[in-house]
């Protein structure tokens, strides 16, 4: 009994020094949560309460704000949300598949031009988005695609970062011996990839998909440049136009705030759910082939 007690006090003593680290970590956590808390309390306020009551006190206008939001522009908010899901979902899946195939090919085969292809694609990370976006817009307009769904989907399928991660993951997770054994059994290269490579690369693919999904969901510049029809805007561009209009009419502020709050719920939920499947250690090169 006493032995346990002394061990306990010893442990407490050794942990007393850890109070400050915990406090600092919690300050960081609160700093990151404050805007999220703010937007949810602001969503509950009627437009007049927004400018008069203290920010972190809930108000009485939640349902009105929500119905205003979904009634705005004849239900445009719903369209924007659906567009964001479409662009990020389809773009994420296509991008993941293209990246996985390329990463597998680059990691598991020796071939002429391998390094040239890999480093050229990797260099793409350095090119600022706008350097690409303007000529992409001009070229896609000449092809008659600007303004359509394809103009925001196609340019985002190629992901230098996704290909890099897939290559790292393929060389770490898919043993060369397994591939050789399957070859001896007479399986075609494509079948080996589908049946052996893909399942082994699944955790890496989830990471690439999440990075691409969040990247496309958060993208503003490309849809802002490509799209002109308000009904095909994603949430980022839609809420931006709403805010720019709102600068003259504060009544639109509540709609913009409510729209921002509703738009971050699904992504935060998805991220919390998928957090355990992420293999972000790939990014720091912790997995070596």
């Amino acid at each position, binding site marked *: 009994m006493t032995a346990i007690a002394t061990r306990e006090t010893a442990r407490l003593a050794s942990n007393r*020094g*850890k109070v400050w*680290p915990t406090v600092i*970590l919690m300050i*960081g956590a609160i700093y*990151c949560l404050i*805007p*999220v808390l*703010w937007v949810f309390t*602001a969503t509950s306020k009627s437009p007049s309460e927004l*400018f008069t009551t*203290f*920010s972190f006190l809930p108000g009485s206008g939640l349902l009105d704000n929500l119905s205003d939001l979904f009634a705005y522009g004849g239900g445009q908010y719903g369209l924007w949300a659906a567009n964001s899901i479409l662009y990020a979902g389809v773009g994420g899946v296509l991008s993941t598949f293209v*990246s996985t*195939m*390329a990463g*597998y*090919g680059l990691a598991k*085969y020796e*071939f002429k031009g*391998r390094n040239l292809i890999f480093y*050229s*694609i990797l260099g793409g990370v*350095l090119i*600022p*988005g706008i*350097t*690409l976006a*303007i*000529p*992409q817009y001009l*070229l896609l307009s000449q092809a008659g695609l600007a303004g359509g769904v394809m103009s925001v989907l196609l*340019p985002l*399928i*190629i992901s230098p970062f996704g290909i890099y991660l897939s290559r790292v993951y393929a060389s770490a997770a898919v043993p060369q011996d397994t591939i050789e054994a399957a*070859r001896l059994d*007479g399986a075609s*290269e*494509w079948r080996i990839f589908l049946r052996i490579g893909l399942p082994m690369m699944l955790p890496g693919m989830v990471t690439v998909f999440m990075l691409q999904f969040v990247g496309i969901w*958060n993208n*503003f*510049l490309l849809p802002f*440049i490509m799209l002109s029809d308000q009904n095909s805007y994603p949430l*980022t561009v839609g*809420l931006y136009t709403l*805010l*720019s209009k*709102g600068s003259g009419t504060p009544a639109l*502020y509540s709609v*913009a*705030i409510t729209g921002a709050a509703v738009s971050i719920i699904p992504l*935060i939920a998805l*991220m919390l759910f998928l*957090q355990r499947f992420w293999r*972000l*250690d790939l*990014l*720091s*090169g*912790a997995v070596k082939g």
Partner: protein
Amino acid sequence: MTLTPAPPAAVVAQTRTAPPRKRQRSRTRFAPYLFVGPAVVLFVLFMLVPIIYAAYLSFTAYKIQGGGILGTKTLVFAGFDNYVSVLTDPALGSGFWHLALYSAIAVPLTLGLALLFALLLDTPGVRATRFGQTAIFIPYAVPGVIAALLWGFMYLPSTSPFSYITKALGWGPIPFLESSGIFGSIGNIAVWGGVGFNMIIIYTSLRSIPAEIYEAARIDGANERQIALRVKIPLVVPALLLTGIFSVIGALQLYSEPTTLKPMTDIISQTWVPLMTIYRNAFLTDDLPGAAALSVLLAVGTVALSGLVLWISNRRAKGAQS
């Protein structure tokens, strides 16, 4: 595959070295190109061709031939004219100055806080690490435009909770969106959005360090802070370098945050940062060659800056080894 049944095992075992090898080699000669094919095609179409097109545009100018309504615009070769006019534009100088001030705040703070939180998560005895990690990571899920919108309302004197308190104390609103506070305000949005992701990268890198290294340091009498400073930080330099390069590239591409805050303040002009100038040239003043020239300059600058960071760090690494 279905047309060529697998040879019996005995045959494979007997002729393992000769004929199947040859067939395999010819088969694996084409397969990799099919795997990387889609990526290469997309890379050429949506990255290589646009870059070449932008470079081409930057050396051209519109010339109106004929007169009146019958005049047609044609592209003619203009040499370095666009580069000269872009570089002598006073808007560009102030744009890069704004970018430099913003980067000087955002990049070191993001990386410093990310490293600090990652080290705290990795320190034994610290409580509520799972909550802390999740909370700090949450802003990553919030798009830059939405983050700027949230913070914008928290800066705006009429809705700001911080100014609500200072106004109640009789000090007046905090000048978040005035010329004195704008760099800190935009920098803060970037720090808020970027700390979590960088923290995770550094933290995963910390966790891949074998525990024996720490045990050895503890036996030698080092405390946790000494271990963090002398052992952990030097070992996560590669991760810091990666996050550093991406933070610098991201800082140079600052666009969504000032664009979103623009309706809320008069401080932010149409040419506040280079990317906003490029957008204005391309879509508001129809000066595509000028926009192309400036984007090429920005791309070259980004590549040069990243190259410089890598070169310096390589030299340091070599110096440390020898």
